[in-house]
């Protein structure tokens, strides 16, 4: 049990929606990871589809580098399309 790898779980709540990260499970292999994800995260009808992926297969940004990674975007508010007045008909797009 202690050497079971960790798997990240993604769940699609309804048809048409994206899979969203729900949490993680330990499991000895992919098949059991799917089973554990089903038993852990869809007990209350939370989903219609599950993805699992080995946590070690996820390439993540380094929190220590978040300054260089994300701060440059902070000063560029013109990238937000908030300076246009939209016709009411498309206001809720």
């Amino acid at each position, binding site marked *: 049990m202690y050497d079971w790898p960790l798997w990240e779980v993604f769940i699609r709540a309804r048809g048409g929606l994206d899979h969203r990260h729900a949490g993680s499970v330990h499991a000895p292999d992919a*098949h*059991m990871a799917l089973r*554990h994800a089903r*038993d*852990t995260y869809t*007990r209350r009808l939370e989903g219609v589809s599950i993805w699992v992926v080995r946590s070690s297969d996820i390439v993540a940004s380094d929190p220590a580098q978040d300054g260089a990674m994300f701060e440059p975007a902070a000063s560029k508010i013109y990238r937000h399309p908030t300076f246009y007045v939209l016709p009411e008909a498309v206001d809720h797009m």
Partner: protein
Amino acid sequence: MDHSLFRALTQLGDDSLILGQRLCEWCGHAPTIEVDLGLSNLALDLIGQATLLLDYAGEVEGGGRDADALAFHRNAEQFANCLLAEQPNGDFARTVVRHLFFATYASALYEALAASPDARLAEIAAKAVKELRYHADFAADWAERLGDGTEESRARMAEALDWHWRFVNDLFHDDRDWAACAARGLVPLRQSLRYGFERDVSAILERAGLALPRKVWPIVGGRSGQHSEHLSVLLATMQVLPRAHPEAVW
């Protein structure tokens, strides 16, 4: 009162109730949190089935008893579950083998019951069969992994198979009431499911590098209330609160 239908429904309901109660004992003790939740899910499926079946049994009986009255106010010798269901959890291998045997049997049985001319029973079975197929897959997955795992897990699985095999004859026993319902076409004879059971379980065990024991154990008795000593202890835990406070409500 349709006595044989009442008894047949009680047998079905008691199997689910007693095995569900057994699995609840794993809560907080399973090898991992994921397996803990998995086993609790199985237990809740079974207790849900028991509620539907025993409520129906109470209606057929016509004496005003519902599922709670039948679950909490009968003694061991009045329970009609199979001997397999009441066996202690043992180690994880024993729980897996018990569930492999039960769920493989029950998913075939409920598939047939879903086509019963008794509409109420067919409706309950149609819901239960989906749950039980998952149970059978769950147990088969673990049986394969443990059988094909380490030397220790394999040895424990072999021991568990040897232990639970002695209760399989009772699992497939058609007592007089069940046979009477079968003669009316309401339920299939359990014996008619046994070949498929042994074929399916053998195929799973073969993938796990294990095999069914060959020894024949002629033990029966669960359906007529002759239980092992384990059932009374289980009932004492399950029934203590409603027996001490019969009027208590949530």
